[in-house]
């Protein structure tokens, strides 16, 4: 299965708030960033958390966001960034 996104692609984290165990922090939902690397395929923590085996594995990306885009009142320099990991099913093309 090929990756839906490649390094350098602009992606948006889905703005959705399902209940349960999620590894996508609230503060990054709805924000757009650039794929920095494809981290590989990992067991799905949303399933592991409830005793399932986490299969099929999900593709995990490391995405870089500009701080000023995450926080409207960010008071540091404009070039500052925040990187985090987002599973493919939480991403859509920006």
């Amino acid at each position, binding site marked *: 299965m090929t990756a839906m996104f490649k390094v350098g692609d602009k992606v948006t984290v889905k703005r959705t708030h399902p209940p349960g165990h999620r590894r996508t*922090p609230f*503060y990054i939902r709805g924000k757009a960033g650039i794929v920095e690397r494809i981290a*590989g395929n990992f067991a799905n923590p949303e399933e592991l958390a409830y005793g399932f085996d986490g299969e099929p594995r999900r593709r995990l990306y490391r995405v870089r966001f500009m701080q000023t885009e995450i926080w409207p009142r960010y008071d*540091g*320099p404009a070039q500052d960034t*925040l*990187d985090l*990991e987002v599973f493919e099913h939480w991403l859509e093309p920006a």
Partner: protein
Amino acid sequence: MTDERDARGHHHHHDHDHDAHAPIEVGASEYEIMALAMRELLIEKGYVTAAEIRSALEYMDSRTPSLGAKVIAKAWSDPAYKKRLLENAPAACKEVGVDVTPAHLVVVENTPATHNVIVCTLCSCYPRSLLGLPPDWYKSKAYRSRVVIEPRKVLKEFGTELPGDITLRVHDSNADLRYIVLPLRPKGTEGWGEEKLASIVTRDCLVGVTLPVV
């Protein structure tokens, strides 16, 4: 109305009559008793053996920031090793005798133009297989909440002031990767051997809240 009990045996009344649910003050010794009781019960039930627990404790004691310092000192001394460390940190750690399994370790490099800092906002993910248990502040609400939104202020609280022309990269270690920072080798360390270099690489440098001091 449902009536459940939590781990400490408190009754929880899930209704809305605002009846007194005064938090019971429990001293640390109560949690120590819980740890001992868990140990005994899990052994009795056959889920784990005393030997397995002992070996888990020994493994924990073998993981300290000095392992991370050793890796950084080698990277400072050997450009080819540094390249391998940045490309594949678990393999490079193995070269110096440190097995970081099961961590998918990533090393992020400070440069004259870039500084990196690590956090886990959702819990307290930390490269334990390299550095051991995380420090108290790493697990604190203050650090987890604030370092993503006002990282420069938080760094100042550690005594680290970054010039405005430096790019600050915050890494939220929120899923399967674990991170350490490769600090810049400070001036004044020319000619130092790896052991002496390792002596200035502290745990806080490896998380990115401080810089190595000569």
